[in-house]
């Protein structure tokens, strides 16, 4: 530490030209702009070590949960019913195309989000369900974060439970992945925070009484029941929460930014098995 200070003082002492003051002084860091060619942080903590710490901090709650059962399991049951329910002008249900028990969707959610040429952008499970409803079933789209929407998303994802996430960022997906990464690393707001600071650089540290989670585990368990909400919600609802906590304006569900961000985070979880519904504080 003192070496850093000494070095700075030496640099200060030999300063011979004036760096512009005012806005210019802070333009180098933290003016909210994204530096070109972001250098990603190395994960601060290994997955095993993080899981050990998670258990130490939250183990009591998760064990209790395991005994009492996850309230989101009820929603999962509703999702299974909805999957088989005929709706819309075409007289079809999801099961009409994907098999009575969703056989044809086993493992599919593990490859989402993915690039879609029709969208010329990133498709998520939630978005795809609504596209199917509209285009294949002639049924109304479901409102994001509504109970039936979450229930169907949960059911479709549960068909990939235990399957390692395997998301591609090759080819046309690449620029969207890069955009997600840029958002994740962008500094913003009065605190000048970025997502990556808390969830990569300092993952595994305590911020007050909260263990900063490792982003390798952010995309593997949503929708999750969250105690603080007293409800089940999606990963994107959690994005909005973190946005608000650090005083950044939240985006609408399934906005382009959030879909790109979801791709970025899901790619970080490649190889981690899907396990829904999750349970969080």
């Amino acid at each position, binding site marked *: *530490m*003192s070496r850093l200070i000494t070095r700075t003082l030496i640099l200060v002492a030999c300063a011979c030209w004036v760096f512009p003051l005012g806005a210019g002084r802070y333009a180098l860091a*933290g003016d909210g702009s994204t530096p070109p060619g972001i250098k990603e942080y190395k994960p601060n903590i290994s997955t095993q070590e993080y899981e050990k710490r998670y258990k130490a901090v939250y183990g009591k709650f998760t064990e209790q949960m395991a005994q009492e059962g996850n309230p989101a399991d009820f929603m999962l049951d509703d999702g299974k019913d909805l999957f088989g329910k005929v709706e819309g002008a075409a007289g079809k249900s999801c099961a009409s195309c994907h098999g009575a028990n969703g056989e044809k969707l086993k493992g599919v959610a593990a490859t989402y989000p993915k690039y879609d040429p029709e969208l010329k952008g990133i498709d998520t499970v939630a978005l795809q369900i609504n596209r199917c409803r509209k285009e294949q079933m002639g049924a109304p789209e479901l409102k994001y974060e509504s109970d039936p929407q979450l229930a169907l998303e949960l059911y479709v994802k549960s068909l990939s439970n235990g399957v390692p996430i395997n998301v591609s960022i090759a080819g046309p997906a690449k620029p969207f992945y890069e955009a997600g990464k840029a958002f994740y690393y962008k500094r913003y707001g009065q605190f000048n925070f970025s997502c990556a600071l808390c969830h990569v650089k300092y993952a595994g540290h*305590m911020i007050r009484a909260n263990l900063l989670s490792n982003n390798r585990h952010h995309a593997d368990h949503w929708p999750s029941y969250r105690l603080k909400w007293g409800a089940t919600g999606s990963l994107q609802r959690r994005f909005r929460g973190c946005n608000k906590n650090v005083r950044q304006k939240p985006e609408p569900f399934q906005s382009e930014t959030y879909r790109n961000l979801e791709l970025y985070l899901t790619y970080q979880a490649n190889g981690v098995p899907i396990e829904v519904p999750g349970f969080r504080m």
Partner: protein
Amino acid sequence: MKIGTVTAFSLALALAALPAVAPAAGNAENGKKIVEAKNLGNCAACHVIPNMEFPGDVGPDLVASMQGFTEKDRGTVRQWVWDARAFDPDTIMPPFGPNKLLTNAEVDDVVEYLYSIQKK
């Protein structure tokens, strides 16, 4: 790495160009309140601070840190609180001064508090 050095260098130059902020005498009692208040310093979110519950461990223990500073370093300590980017361009510590999280007088009070927890 090279870019990092250049950035640090430019920031150091920028620092040199600042009008010397002579740290004014602050009020340690008030500083303690600012450090503890969640809507002001909220320093314990990241630092161990005496008598604060559930401190974070993102930053160093501030009692230990203060052992590294003498009275002559008041300007340096003030700069850490005002805007830590002068020392670490990629710091997670919020720029309390420039982003108007704390006023000049409040930063002086915080500095006074930090010297009060220094083991003499």
